[in-house]
């Protein structure tokens, strides 16, 4: 534990050596790996102790082999591709609709207040509840899934964009106005960039909802994709494929979230956060 004052001590060796950097990286990697090694060990041990069949409780080794099979046959990759594409399009459509709507609503606040109850009501309807209706409209497949993802992405993006715009200091708008900006220029130069941190947070939340929705929708209304795979494998008594699929889903989401969504959010919010704090 570092004392309170030590944080402000002048740093003598500011440029840290390369090996120190390496060791810091390595130790954090170990810290991340050990729990999972432990998890697999517990999984293996419990399988031995419980003595259940592979149908009920597939062994780690079998799941690993199944991974190999699924990858070798190209199934895993192609289903992952299918799923991610659906998810990407769904999140894109949801965001693409939500941001202009949010800007428009922020522009006409009284109108926005009027719309809130309706928006609230639609937010309250679980996107998966729409699936039976979407199926009646479009049959199984791409459209149903994309629509349900877009639906569930739309609301957090809308809400967060609007709250982002709400947090823009009035002085920024006034400053633009005193510089001679008209309504639209204010929207373009102040509101739109000012709403960005909110939007990004919203997209990250919405993308998370969308990912869960993707898996659910694929189980109910698709003939391909990871959700379909884990569900169908169960029917075929190939539980190891279900587990392999679940792990893929978890890893995929962590990768997308940690490698793309979180850094983007952090970069935007931090960059604009400075601006906001200066209020």
């Amino acid at each position, binding site marked *: 534990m570092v004392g309170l*004052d030590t944080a402000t*001590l002048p740093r003598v060796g500011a440029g840290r050596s390369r090996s120190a950097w390496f060791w810091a990286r390595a130790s954090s990697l170990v810290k991340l790996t050990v729990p999972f090694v432990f998890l697999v060990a517990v999984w293996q041990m419990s399988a031995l102790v419980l003595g259940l069949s592979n149908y009920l409780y597939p062994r780690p080794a079998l799941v690993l082999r199944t991974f190999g099979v699924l990858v070798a046959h190209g199934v895993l990759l192609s289903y992952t591709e299918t799923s991610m594409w659906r998810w990407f399009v769904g999140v894109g459509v949801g965001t693409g609709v939500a941001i202009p709507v949010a800007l428009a609503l922020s522009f006409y606040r009284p109108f926005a207040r009027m719309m809130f109850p309706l928006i609230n009501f639609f937010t309250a309807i679980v996107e998966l509840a729409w699936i039976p209706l979407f199926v009646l409209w479009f049959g199984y497949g791409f459209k149903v899934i994309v629509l349900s993802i877009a639906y569930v992405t739309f609301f957090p993006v809308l809400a967060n964009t609007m709250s982002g715009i709400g947090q823009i200091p009035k002085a920024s708008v006034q400053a633009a106005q005193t510089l001679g900006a008209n309504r639209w220029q204010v929207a373009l130069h102040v509101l739109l960039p000012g709403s960005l941190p909110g939007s990004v947070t919203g997209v990250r939340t919405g993308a998370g909802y969308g990912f869960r929705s993707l898996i659910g929708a694929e189980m109910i209304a698709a003939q391909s994709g990871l959700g379909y795979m884990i569900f169908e494998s169960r029917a075929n008594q190939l539980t190891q494929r279900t587990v392999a699929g679940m792990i893929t889903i978890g890893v995929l989401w962590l990768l997308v979230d940690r490698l793309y969504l979180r850094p983007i959010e952090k970069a935007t919010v931090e960059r604009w956060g400075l601006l906001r704090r200066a209020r």
Partner: protein
Amino acid sequence: MPVVGSVAAKPAGGSLEVNDVCHEYVRAGDKTAVIALGPVSLQVSAGEFLCLLGPSGCGKSTLLMIIAGLLPPTRGTVAVDAVPVTGPSRERGVVFQDYALLPWKTVRSNVALGPRLAGASRREANQIADEYLELVGMPQAGDRYPHELSGGMRQRAAVARTLAAKPKVLLMDEPFAAVDAQTRGVLQEELVGIWARTAQTVVFVTHSVEEAALLADRVVVMSSAPGRVQEEFPVTLPHQVRFSRESAPRVAEVAASLLASVRVAQPRQSRQVASWSG
């Protein structure tokens, strides 16, 4: 302000002894040990008001945390009334710079926490809390939550909370750094009033020479990297007159000599550091 019975009946503060205390930490980068503080030795007699003054990063807050028992010293010992300190306890109350009031408790419950933890019943504790809230001049604020108060009021509440635990030594870590100048002046004067009435031993950390000159019986100026005692200044001006207009030049004189000492204490490279942190 009326003096409430149990407040005045409080026993006088304890004496504090700091012997050759050092604090080292391991730098994250190259894993080398850095001496941040010490060795430092201090004697504070019962009822004394001591200011620890120094440039940012001189380890004065670290020293305070060590005295509080929140940070174990690498070497050396701390003792209150000749009993060695082994960890945090209510005999050394701390007023933190950022108040550290518990946001989920009302002001009264915050102040009552010390007595409650000492085993008082809820009613007794609340009664004690109200007395101390009155002592710090906010008798009406008991039912409010900390976030509803201004910075100055929060700091008053924090002082009341610490005093209500009846510590032998009161440790204050730049408590008025976060409030505006005008409120700070009021709080300083009130603190001296409370100190005079409760005969409390106080160790007060500050980076402001004016503050040290206004408050202290004795000022210990610390040098930085590593933090050591550079010089000691007894302040002989009586406390009752320090806040008066007539004494302003004399307080300023004390402050000026303190400033000269701090200047020497401040190493070249950190003189450019404009901000400090607690």
